């Protein structure tokens, strides 16, 4: 945090160098958005509303994995004592919700103004969240196997090189840790409804926010994670009703979906199992 304040130029250069997976065009666009980030009925209202699905996804996922202690289930802080890394945290819409549930949250984002906004908002709301302006590749170097869970919500569809991004995420995850993602599927439905119609007809999100080429199919995502020995627990379809600004779970994963994958306890044993299969 201090580093980025003192040498912002250096970091910026680093960020945009070909080594990282961040696309400079993407960042410029997000800067435009930050002003209205925290207006729950504003331009980012779909993201605010998505918390009604993705926070329970993380909470229940961790409860089902048995990492939440019994007395914390159904308490006001079910995620107490768990450390979570929110990759691509933006202004902190998801990070703050997880922090309110008692988790120790680290939020990283490659957009410096989003991180500033996030810090400002957390301070105002008395939440202690460790926000860092960095990339996951950078962060992974010093935080190997540090987190109980990693969330990357609505992020992977903005990443050009998906494999190194996911590799770095997995690096940061403790053994038995959980990886939670939400993103858009690479289908004609996404292209027509979630991209073309949402950006051009209904003005839900700014033009150019998403590109279909950068979306990824759940099977593809699962395959990359499997290469990292992660076992996929669940893939669920998500549906956004833009008239009521409500999200709900659905069977088809044609447009949006979530994924929960778990890192093996011991890499060796998991590998053996895979080989036997």
């Amino acid at each position, binding site marked *: 945090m201090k580093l980025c304040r003192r040498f912002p130029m250096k970091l910026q250069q680093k960020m945009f160098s070909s080594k990282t997976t961040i696309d400079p065009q993407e960042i410029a666009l997000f800067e435009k958005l930050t002003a209205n980030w925290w207006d729950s009925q504003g331009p980012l209202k779909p993201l605010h509303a998505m918390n009604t699905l993705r926070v329970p996804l993380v909470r229940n996922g961790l409860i089902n994995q048995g990492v939440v202690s019994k007395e914390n289930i159904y308490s006001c802080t079910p995620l107490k004592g768990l450390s979570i890394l929110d990759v691509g945290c933006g202004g902190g819409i998801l990070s*703050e919700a997880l922090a*309110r549930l008692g988790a120790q949250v680290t939020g990283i984002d490659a957009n410096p103004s989003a991180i500033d906004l996030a810090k400002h908002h957390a301070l105002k709301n008395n939440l202690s969240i460790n926000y860092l302006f960095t990339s996951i590749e950078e962060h992974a170097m010093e935080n190997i196997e540090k987190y109980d869970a990693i969330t990357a919500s609505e992020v992977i569809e903005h990443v050009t090189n998906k494999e190194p991004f996911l590799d770095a995420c997995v690096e940061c995850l403790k053994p038995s840790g959980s990886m939670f993602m939400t993103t858009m599927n690479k289908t004609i439905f996404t292209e027509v409804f979630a991209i073309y119609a949402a950006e051009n007809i209904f003005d839900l999100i700014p033009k150019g926010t998403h590109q279909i080429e950068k979306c990824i199919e759940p099977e593809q995502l699962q395959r990359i994670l499997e290469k990292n020995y992660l076992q996929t627990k669940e893939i669920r379809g998500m549906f956004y009703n833009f008239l009521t600004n409500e999200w709900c779970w659905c069977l088809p994963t044609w447009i949006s979906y979530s994924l929960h994958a778990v890192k093996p306890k011991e890499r060796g044993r998991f590998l053996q199992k895979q080989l036997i299969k």
Partner: protein
Amino acid sequence: MIISKLIKINNSSALHRLKYKNLNFIRCFSDEAGSHFDIVIAGGGMVGTTLACTLGKNKTLNNKKILLLEASVNKPWIKSDKYSNRVVSLNPGTHKLFEDNGAWAFIEQHRFHIVKRLEVSDALSETSITFGKSEHTDTISYMVENDLVLEAAKNEAQKCNNLKILYGAKVKNYVLPDYHSDVSNIELENGEKFTCDLLLGCDGYNSSVRKAMQVDYVSWNHNQMGVVATLKFSNKFDNEIAFQRFLPTGPVALLPLTDELSSLVWSTTPQEAKRLLGISEEEFVAEINKAVCGPWKQSSTVLQATSAFDTLLRALNCSRDHSRKRPPKIESVEPGSRAAFPYGFGHASQYIRKGAALVGDAAHRIHPLAGQGVNLGFGDVACLNKVLGEAVYSGSTLSDLNHLKDYESARQKHNVPTMLAVEGLHRLYNTDFAPVVLLRGLGLQATHALEPLKKIIMAQGAV
């Protein structure tokens, strides 16, 4: 613009941190803005107090500070042999809420009366409909005095560590959050100030929270008043049937309290109510006996048609229930138990706004014809408790509209049809125009014979 400003502030980080800490400090403790609570409940009537104890006992809301503000002083409840003239009929949904929040134990320790059947009849067409099984097996409602309900809720509320109750605390002014702020400011008449994230208006049908929320409110006067009294029967019996009879001036209802007492709710015109309060006790008893059992001028066409309809129903093998009972003769009225209250209809088109929600009579006021008034409010309490618990368990802030709107839509879906049905019934029965009387006579017989329809009506009343 805003971002660059924010970033500038943020960059002088140490100074900024200090500033903000101070700001928060001011928000929480200084006299200027008043102390801060997560939830403030305005109005400690039956609904507000029940809401306070229900939220206070919700495990997922354990770390929230709650404040209950009530204008009146804290009247100690004294158990007396005499029954209060204000009683409510609590439906099974409300009973469940009170079992869940722990308040039912107190009521059970003192007194309540179970109603197993409801007999509704029409004085002009002499038709009737019965709700509840003729074998008297199911409980359709529980009669409890208002102040016992209030005391039970208060008693449980006082057990909650995160809940503070202030009596004699009349609110003078509310300033609700706007685009730039996230908290509501509350000022009491004695000058005390509070801020909160979520303001819950339980301040009755004349709600000032509703006015501060600036939501549309549809209302009209019924030009009717409710005369209440405690009545004594001439003999003891299994008093487990609530009787309601529609008279041309409005319904008269006898709600069982003990095996020899019933509570009267007689809805009538303001002039008639005034007269009923003025006459002697003997005359009053005679008037009630006539209203409950006495004959009314019946149009012969109406009578002929309803008996023909009855024959038709019998032919179709869905005959009416012949176990219909009439209440026994009333002997006396408890001295000093007579009183009258005005009726009205009102409904807020929205129950929620950023940082605020309406609960109970503040959101909806109905004719107490079906004994539903306060049950709708308790239904609101159960729903809001669930919604807020889920919101917090999902990491949301209390004032998040994405959750609050679940409360609004769920409750309006329930309340609006109930209110319209009750209002419709009220209008339907508030006439002696022969064709309408005939229609409703046939209607009552038909509903009576049609079990499934009755089930629906009962289910609607139960939540």
